[in-house]
């Protein structure tokens, strides 16, 4: 192996005294940006021999390299100077044209001026929080919620309250009493964050009825809803449901979209659509953060859309992911014990599985890693330590053979824990049908329920 050249005077690593000195300088909000032994565990999932069902990665291996090369070459030949230059903070109009095409495919038609191009959907979430959240403000989201949103809300010191999900997405019915309760305390949430379609991590989709109810509620109470929709176009079956943005018309819904799951996460291109007064502030926030989104990748998207096969590519992805979803669900049926349950997503990238509540999936991950397989422990999707018996499994980032083998390995380590528990307690296995029947009765997702929303 060749040595990497090192600068002549590498700075010494901090001594403990330095750290103590810095510790006094850290903003309070860094207290929530945790580093922990568990994060070290997650780092091991990157080992090459580990089958990782922990990622949230789309499969970029199917993107034709010739097409990528041709588009980038055309950019270099025809608009090198412009593509290498700064761009407008809001993003190029041509990028917005592409965004409007994508949103149009889901029945939305926003105004150009209401759209801002962001560095990935993640930045859109960050900018919305930056624009709206003061320390201590309430933000409502789903339980479980997108694990990547939690640190964003926490870094603006939001008081995050989670509402349970079931098969039909966020239990919107629980929202009203929660809002009333908060109202009595003189508090009002700054926004409600939701991934209504093929939710990350649960894989569930909010029913039309709940969508309508949520939009009505937002309108009646003048609340903002942040609709994060990275997966909407990745539908494997069933009828398309209208996005909240479409139902609302954009008065009380801030929409967040991304090219990450329909084209590439590496280009870091996402967007937000917001009512003009909110957009004005978001643009200022964006300016302070990074002036503008990458010009180069915006040029790439423009070229890519000119080619006119972006929807065909999505169809190809859908076919691949559908097969992988089927493989995963079949493997779960075969290898997970009767005590476990899981969601059956109609689209997106994730399955959410829940184990008996005596199994902590964070600890289970250590055991799974010894068997060279990884998943995301459910706790990552909660702000209050719940979700301990659940796990998120990704089926988009790895091939079918790996999915089968990965699920088999996880199933094996779970089976060992289940058997051990029975030995320790003398309890017998719960027949699978009984478990499923009781879940169906309540129409609850197989989430471990440990308390009321916001409790």
């Amino acid at each position: 192996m060749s040595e990497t050249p090192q600068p002549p005077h590498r700075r010494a690593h901090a001594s403990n005294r330095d750290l103590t000195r810095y510790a006094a300088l850290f903003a309070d909000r860094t207290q929530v940006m945790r580093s922990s032994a568990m994060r070290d565990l997650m780092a091991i999932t990157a080992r090459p021999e580990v089958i990782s069902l922990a990622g949230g990665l789309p499969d970029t291996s199917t993107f034709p390299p010739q097409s990528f090369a041709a588009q980038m070459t055309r950019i270099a030949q025809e608009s090198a100077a412009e593509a290498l230059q700064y761009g407008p903070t809001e993003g190029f109009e041509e990028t917005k044209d592409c965004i409007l095409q994508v949103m149009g495919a889901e029945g939305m038609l926003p105004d150009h001026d209401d759209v801002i191009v962001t560095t990935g959907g993640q930045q859109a979430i960050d900018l919305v929080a930056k624009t709206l959240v003061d320390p201590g403000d309430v933000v409502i989201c789903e339980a479980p919620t997108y694990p990547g949103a939690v640190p964003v809300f926490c870094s603006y010191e939001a008081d995050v309250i989670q509402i349970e999900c079931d098969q039909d997405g966020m239990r919107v019915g629980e929202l009203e009493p929660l809002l009333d309760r908060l109202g009595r305390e003189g508090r009002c949430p700054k926004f409600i964050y939701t991934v209504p379609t093929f939710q990350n991590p649960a894989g569930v989709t909010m029913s039309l009825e709940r969508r309508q109810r949520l939009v009505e509620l937002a309108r009646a109470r003048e609340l903002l809803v942040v609709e994060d929709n990275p997966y909407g176009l990745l539908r494997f079956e069933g009828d398309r449901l209208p996005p909240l943005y479409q139902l609302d018309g954009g008065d009380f819904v801030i929409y967040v979209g991304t090219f990450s799951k329909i084209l590439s996460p590496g280009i870091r291109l996402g967007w937000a659509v917001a009512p003009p007064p909110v957009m004005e502030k978001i643009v200022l926030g964006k300016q302070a953060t990074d002036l503008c989104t990458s010009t180069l990748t915006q040029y790439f998207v423009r070229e890519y859309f000119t080619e006119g096969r972006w929807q065909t590519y999505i169809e190809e992805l859908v076919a691949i992911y559908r097969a992988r979803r089927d493989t995963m669900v079949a493997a779960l049926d075969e290898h997970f014990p009767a005590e476990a349950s899981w969601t059956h997503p109609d689209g997106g990238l994730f399955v959410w599985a829940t184990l008996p509540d005596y199994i902590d999936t964070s600890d289970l991950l250590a055991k799974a890693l010894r068997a060279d397989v990884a998943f995301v422990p459910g706790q990552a999707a909660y702000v209050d330590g719940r979700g301990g018996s659940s796990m998120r499994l990704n089926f988009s980032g790895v091939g079918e053979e790996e999915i089968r083998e990965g699920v088999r390995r996880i199933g094996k380590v779970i089976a060992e824990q289940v058997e051990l528990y029975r030995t320790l307690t003398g309890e017998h296995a719960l027949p699978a049908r009984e478990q499923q029947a009781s879940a169906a009765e309540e129409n609850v997702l197989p989430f471990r329920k440990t308390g009321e929303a916001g409790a």
Partner: protein
Amino acid sequence: MKVAVLKGGRSLERGVSLRSAARVEDALERLGHEVVPIDVGGDLVKRLGEGADVAFVAMHGVGGEDGTAQELLEILGIPYTGPGAAACARCMDKAQAKDAMREAGIPTPDWFAFSQAAFRELGAADALGRIEETLGFPLVVKPSRGGSSLGVKFAGSATEVPQALIAAFSYDDRILLERFVEGRELAVSVLGDEALPVVEAIPESGDRYDFEARYQIGRTRFVCPAELDEAEEGAVTEAALATYRALGCTGFARIDLILDEDGPWVLEANAIPGLTDTSLLPQAAEAAGMSFERLVERILELALKPAAA
């Protein structure tokens, strides 16, 4: 000198190891040594074969701290830092270490160690009631081999024991149930055969069951030297040195203890304690007036001339 820094590997504590190693590599370079960083994997022997005067083992947990890498280094005849292979193996396995402590008359909290097989095949579960009676509640359940408090759980009552056992068994096939001793949490680092100033860990969050807090700046306060009276300090240091000897450690090690009104109770010995910027051994060395470079240099000296220790 050409120093191979062994780091990473497949252990669950890979992250900590990489942070320890980064700091050690820096220090070695500033000391004028040639550093050969080796992320330990299948090519370890080959990489070491390329030549190294000494190996600095900066690995934590199974594979690096348990004597495995050390045995290879012995076969290759490369001197290495820290305790020898046999001592590493003893320190890594808490049940074994506690056996050795008890034999040497060192106070360690009462415990029972079990393998999974004992539960699966010998009906050990039926003995749980008696164990719980002996140890009392809360009791601590730990994987026998493991570090960074991974898988360590408290059980406040009998109903919480199975779950704690299952968690601990996720990390190792052998676990121990241990009497919980409430007291001050202390760590004594030993360098050569000399005890460094005692470090006390004071949880800021107030929740002593919150192990995550231990690894975060601001959530645990470390005081070094710990405020101990002369008798306390003597007893703590003596217990640590006795443990170090009983386990056959050389080079360095860190002994973790609890101090209550009955005196010190030794919990465990870490054969390769962390060397990250928040780790306790460097803190103790700093309190003894020893810079990190000097500490690294001293550790190397001890590896090369164990007799001079």
